[in-house]
């Protein structure tokens, strides 16, 4: 894939299977350097200063899609994978790139064992009752 994302549509045919083999989007990387594995419910938030990710030539179309999806509404890693129809591993690497580029930040979920008190769990119970 060329860096500007323009060269994608010319080489494939039906026999090739998926348009791009999934991990080609990450240039073969299956993990992202210096990062813990992102939890499926880690929330990805676009940085407010990001105006036009498409103008950044270092970003692939999938990077741009992720930033666009997270801009108005923070999204969990699982939702990004489902919305973009990409494997979770690919989304993790792409989000890692975007964190490195300071285009998004990630809020890791607090493990229940580390919750400061039970008030959040009470809120969950009340919220479920009110559904």
């Amino acid at each position: 894939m060329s860096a500007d994302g323009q060269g994608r549509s010319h080489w494939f045919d039906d026999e090739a299977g998926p348009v791009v083999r999934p991990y080609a989007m990450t240039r073969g990387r299956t993990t992202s350097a210096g990062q813990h594995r992102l939890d499926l419910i880690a929330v990805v938030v676009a940085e407010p200063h990001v105006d036009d990710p498409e103008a950044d030539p270092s970003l692939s179309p999938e990077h741009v899609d992720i930033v666009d999806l997270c801009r108005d509404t923070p999204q969990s890693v699982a939702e990004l994978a489902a919305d973009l129809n990409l494997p979770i591993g690919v989304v993790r690497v792409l989000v890692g790139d975007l964190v490195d580029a300071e285009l998004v930040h990630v809020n890791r979920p607090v493990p229940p064992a580390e919750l400061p008190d039970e008030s959040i769990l009470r809120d969950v119970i009340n919220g479920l009752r009110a559904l």
Partner: protein
Amino acid sequence: MIFGRSERGKPPVEPVTLKILVAGGFGVGKTTLVGAVSEIRPLRTEEYLTEAGRPVDDTSGVEGKHTTTVAMDFGRITLREDLVLYLFGTPGQERFWFMWDELSEGALGAVVLADTRRLEDCFAAVDYFERRSIPFVIGVNCFEGAAHYPAGDIRQALDLDDDVPLLLCDARDRESVKDVLIGVVEHAMEYGAERRQSVTS
């Protein structure tokens, strides 16, 4: 997308997220349960099978099939603008347990959905959560046409510890599923309190 939508110029709300797992045998109603309470149609995420499945998956004869995917269905419940609960249906096959490890990390708790006609299908899930000290409840999905057994008999058949709640439910029914999920959170609270006590005493 409902939560966190912001007015122009105001930063979006960054919600606290929690997850509950839904486990059980194939066809026991995991996705039905998720769909009964989720505000979104259950979504599907996939992961390509990596090292874990390579010695197991014989692809001879299906060489055109390059990868095996593990699918997980999940749903979302926005409890408040800043508090979102996700439900994940665990992949049914036992050889995908490497995905369970990842899913169960940081989980608030789990529902093990059981069908009295095939009770043995949920043994593996019960074992899994017991061994990893993840609080869980048993939800007995009361299928039409299935014989009803007293809760005590089911507990005995599953060899459950006394403190594990067992609830009869209908995975299609929103109110019933809400009760099961409330049961999970209440059990997780008690469980957490006991753990804290045993650490400090």
